[in-house]
């Protein structure tokens, strides 16, 4: 009999879990819709900004030999120090979402290290930060709460220091890694090189052959403003993209958890029914054999 009660208790607890996971799935799908909308709206701006920067970088490479500016576009062939910035979620229960990002960061880090390059990590998101703290790997900069509520001002503050250090020469490369949103069921790890600006051209037709004119007396000011804007927006967009991906990953994880709970309730119910039937049969046999012995 004790066995029966135990099974019953188990069924109840699994059902409760199922309720929780289902609620979390609903919450995530509502949040996903909002996050997706925001990411979609800023995607065009991010792409255009990227295109503009790429084209300008290309022009600068072709027409200008200035050293200070070219450092922003020309890659150092022997990098000594590389900054890796990663974005993870603040919360768990979203399947392999955070683990995938961290795995990529780790593999990249060991790649750089085997080439004798020093890697400095900075992170956004509690999960990733906790992971490195547990593994006793130092992060030079951390931000918690930014990945669950991206905001432009904090994002730009976060990146500004890294950019400053790049400009004064203490780092040779800045890489941004985040898990990005593709659609409701797919997320993909995105690795962006923020600095030096990659001159890989998205749209070759848009390039005209003439030299770039700058309609401003202080052209350095314009380049600086535009570059700063580009950095800030790149990281801000990564945060938005990551948030949409996080919600879609959580939705999926919670959906499969709900399904698993359902299956578990099913097998437990079968087990419960079998145990009950067994108990009834034993009782009957006892009564019958009792009657038989009385005869």
């Amino acid at each position: 009999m004790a066995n029966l009660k135990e099974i019953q208790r188990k069924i109840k607890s699994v059902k409760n879990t199922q309720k929780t996971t289902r609620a979390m799935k609903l919450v995530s799908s509502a949040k996903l819709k909002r996050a997706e909308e925001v990411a979609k709206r800023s995607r065009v701006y991010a792409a255009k900004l990227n295109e503009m920067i790429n084209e300008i970088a290309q022009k600068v490479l072709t027409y200008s030999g200035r050293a200070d500016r070219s450092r922003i576009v020309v890659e150092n062939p022997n990098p000594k120090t590389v900054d890796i910035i990663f974005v993870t979620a603040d919360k768990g229960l979203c399947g392999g979402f955070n683990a995938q990002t961290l795995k990529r960061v780790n593999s990249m880090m060991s790649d750089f290290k085997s080439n004798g390059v020093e890697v400095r990590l900075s992170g956004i998101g509690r999960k990733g930060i906790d992971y490195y703290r547990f593994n006793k790997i130092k992060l030079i900069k951390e931000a918690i709460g930014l990945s669950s509520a991206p905001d432009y001002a904090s994002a730009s503050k976060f990146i500004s220091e890294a950019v400053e250090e790049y400009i004064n020469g203490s780092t040779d490369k800045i890489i941004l890694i985040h898990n990005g949103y593709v659609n409701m069921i797919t997320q993909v790890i995105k690795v962006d090189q923020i600095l030096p600006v990659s001159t890989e051209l998205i749209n070759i037709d848009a390039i005209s052959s003439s030299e770039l004119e700058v309609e401003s007396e202080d052209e350095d000011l314009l380049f600086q403003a535009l570059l700063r804007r580009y950095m800030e927006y790149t990281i801000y967009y990564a945060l938005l993209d990551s948030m949409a991906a996080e919600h879609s990953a959580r939705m999926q994880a919670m959906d499969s958890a709900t399904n698993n709970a359902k299956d578990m309730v099913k097998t437990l119910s079968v087990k419960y029914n079998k145990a009950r039937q067994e108990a009834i049969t034993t009782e009957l046999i006892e009564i019958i054999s009792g009657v038989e012995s009385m005869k």
Partner: protein
Amino acid sequence: MKLMKLEIATPGGVIYDGEARMVTLPGSEGEFGVLPDHATLVSLLSTGVISIDMPDAQKVEVAINSGYVKVNESKVTCLVDDAVAISAGDNDISRKIDEAKKLLESAQNSNTAIAAAVGKIEHIRKSI
């Protein structure tokens, strides 16, 4: 008449994506007009009004706070922080004008630039 492509994008979405005959932009060094086949150019945009001559001879005015523009022979790309588009065919034009004025006045820029831009916006209201 020759046409060029024009794109105006903000972090909140695309404001305009289409063709234009001519576009006048509020550059940081002063206003300038761009026709098709313009030489490649990059400029800062300050608070003001972008006016677009559409292929059907209609005009669209876009109030902006600040941004960047990149021009090449066939295409003009504007990246602005915030913008409100006003075209004569809009049903809720007076609400849009109010919105545009609010946007212009919220910009941190020299007062004369803002006043000039607001004046332009007001002019649209009068012309209807």
